[in-house]
């Protein structure tokens, strides 16, 4: 006959087992997941933090990002025409906020400076109770803010960041990127460059001397050299050099017949304008027409270079002239509200806000680990880039990449680029471990 004895250890074991058994059915419900994470929304609203450059060189791009975020919040809350929510393949969002809470937002100014961006993100997390941080127009800033969000325990939905490192060696579990990267630009551009300029070319790189520039130069060199191109020189230029004439004149007699401008923003506008001034676009070298390539185009920046962009190839994440249903819906919604078409920065930011809200709704929680799990491996369509996947291994979106060219006969000041090829996703995919880094564990912050 067995003896039934109660002692302290047995009581604790029994209580723990009983507790686990009773809790098991609720472990997978939203109320259970929602317990214990940073800035868990308690009232009827949930706060998003939009961290964009409101001052500094990228302020115009930041303003466009902010417009897109405001539009996304309207649509998530059921206001306006719904935009891309109408074409988005996931139907979890019902136009009544997220998880029954209306979305409100706070904004911060990154100034396109890592320290300022971290300070504004920190303020939004600690003082304003932001559940998620999103936005930005620089890879240096994105990597810095992503690290902060990981340490704090909130999700970071990157804005415009193109360096491989954001979802490569500097990737973090709490960070997600919708925008493409330099590796994809190289893979998409190379075949187009081969078709237009052949495989016997000598390239000269001018490269902005920071993380994105190095990443872009590496990717373009890798893919063009695989085509058979040679690299005459790769010269690093200081960020914000203004006058690039002293870097462009050596190109004239270098034997190179292609100039690759790994520049973005003001540097791109100035270096491209000055390269054209020095007659490079009309020059003949090695019996071939000289060519200029701008690997990362932005329509906002291309407007600054005016007619100098004509005929020059580059890549972009999205363009307002796309004719899929998602892009048309977004352009209509944005154009009617603001009177002009959205930029690629606006598109990626709008998409990120929608994707985050949708993931929260599907997960039934705002807890970073729950939201992350809903985003990992998520396959979707209807957001303007065709079928897309948020790859679980590195939190990078994989989708088609656009190769564009400066338009010869623009019909308006917004009509400066034309899409010459939509490079299929399969052509720009790469193994997850190729770019290094470790996601590490999620941090829920509590």
């Amino acid at each position, binding site marked *: 006959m067995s003896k039934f004895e109660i002692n302290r250890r047995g009581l604790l074991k029994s209580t723990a087992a009983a507790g686990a058994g009773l809790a098991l059915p609720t472990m997978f419900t939203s109320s259970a997941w929602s317990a214990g994470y940073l800035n868990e929304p308690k009232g009827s609203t949930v706060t998003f933090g939009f961290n964009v450059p409101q*001052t*500094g*060189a*990228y*302020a*115009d791009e930041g303003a466009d990002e902010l417009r897109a975020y405001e539009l996304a919040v309207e649509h998530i809350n059921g206001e306006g025409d719904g935009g891309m929510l109408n074409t988005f393949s996931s139907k979890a969002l019902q136009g009544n906020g997220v998880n029954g809470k209306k979305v409100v937002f706070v904004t911060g100014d990154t100034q396109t400076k890592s320290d300022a961006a971290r300070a504004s993100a920190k303020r939004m997390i600690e003082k304003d109770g932001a559940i998620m941080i999103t936005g930005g127009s620089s890879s240096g800033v994105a990597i810095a803010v992503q690290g902060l969000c990981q340490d704090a325990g909130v999700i970071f939905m990157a804005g415009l960041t193109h360096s491989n490192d954001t979802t490569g060696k500097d990737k973090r579990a709490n960070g997600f990127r919708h925008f493409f990267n330099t590796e994809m630009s190289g893979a998409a551009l190379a075949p187009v460059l081969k078709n237009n300029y052949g495989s016997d070319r000598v390239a000269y790189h001018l490269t902005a001397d920071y993380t994105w520039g190095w990443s872009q130069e590496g990717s373009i060199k890798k893919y063009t050299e695989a085509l058979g191109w040679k690299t005459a*020189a790769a*010269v690093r230029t*200081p960020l*914000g050099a*203004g*006058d690039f*004439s*002293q*870097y462009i*004149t*050596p190109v*004239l*007699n270098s034997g190179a017949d292609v100039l690759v401008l790994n520049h973005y923003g*003001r540097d791109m*506008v*100035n270096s491209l*304008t*000055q390269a054209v*001034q*020095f*007659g490079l676009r009309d020059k003949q070298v090695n019996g071939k027409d000289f060519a200029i390539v701008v690997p990362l185009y932005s329509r*906002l*920046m291309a*407007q*600054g*270079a*005016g*007619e*100098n962009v004509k005929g020059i190839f580059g890549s972009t994440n999205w363009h*307002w*002239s796309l004719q899929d249903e998602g892009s*048309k819906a977004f*352009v*209509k*919604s*944005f*154009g*009617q509200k603001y*009177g002009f*078409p959205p930029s690629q920065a606006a598109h990626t930011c709008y998409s990120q806000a929608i994707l985050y809200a949708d993931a929260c709704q599907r997960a039934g929680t705002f807890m970073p680990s729950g939201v992350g799990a809903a985003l990992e491996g998520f396959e979707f369509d209807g957001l303007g880039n065709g079928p897309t996947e948020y790859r679980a291994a590195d939190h990078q979106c994989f989708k088609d990449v656009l190769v564009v060219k400066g338009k010869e006969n623009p019909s*308006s000041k917004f009509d400066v680029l034309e899409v010459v090829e939509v490079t299929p996703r399969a052509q720009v995919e790469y193994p997850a471990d190729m770019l290094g880094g470790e996601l590490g564990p999620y941090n829920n912050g509590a």
Partner: protein
Amino acid sequence: MDAILLQILNGLDKGGAYALIALGLTIIFGTLGVVNFAHGALFMLGAFCAVSVKAVLSLERVVEDPNQLTAWGTPMEIRTPFVEVWFGDFGATILDYSVPVSILIAIPVMLLIGIAMERGLVRFFYKRAHADQILVTFGLAIVLQEIVKAQFGANPIPQPAPEAASGMIDFGIMVGIDAGNVVYPAWRLIYFVFSAVVIGAVFAFLQFTTFGMVVRAGMADRETVGLLGIDIDRRFTIVFGIAAIVAGLAGAMYTPILSPDYHMGMDFLVLSFVVVVVGGMGSLTGAVSAGFLLGILQSFASMNEVKDILPGIDQIIIYLIAVVILLVRPRGLMGRKGVMEH
């Protein structure tokens, strides 16, 4: 040889801008004793005079075409500049020459801005410490650039040179080098010639006019000139306006080289101060000489052959030269005794 000649040309046009800004800075310092950190903003305002003139000349007649719709469903707008509507081809030519035309507008505008800046703010800081002057003028520069950003946005604004001056000139042929080896953008050569003419005009004005003589006398001994019954303050106000014109013209003509944005003044300000210090505080010839010298050295330091030996030298050369010159000649290349020494 070709590469060296090209870098000298690069240095000359860049040096022209440095020299013009530094000339104004050193005139203001020499006459008023003010360290004007808003001088770069005057360069930027000159550039935006050119932008504004082009914007005015580009004002468009807008006609909606109900048969064509934008991507967001509103009628497409057909835009034609009024100058073309009113004057046809002549209007198109005026628009093409908007940068040279803007010089005519920039002269009175910059004179007024300079006088307003001096009378409205700077004169209250004549007897204050240089640190106070730097703080207040730097603050003014930030205010001005934020106003410009609010009005024109943060992105660079393209400002092409007139079509007739947007091509290349084969400079090599002029100096006996094979054709095609040293070709250089025409507008940059025009800019160098323009800066030389403006510098010459300023020197001639100060050297050969009574006004200039009084100003030079005031720079040497303000108190004595005042005791002779000459209203030196009024003349110095005009000098401030002239310095603003020089900076403004430098900025307006530079717009086809560097698409203007609100921050361009700050980019030139620090370098121009180095130019003034290297040339010698208060020395006009020193400022001009140092402007061209540092422009050329900066271009040479960017050559791949130089960078292969000394990586990164292009980013520090100007400051390195400044350190060396100040060690050897503490008053700068042509600095006057007693300036900023008490």
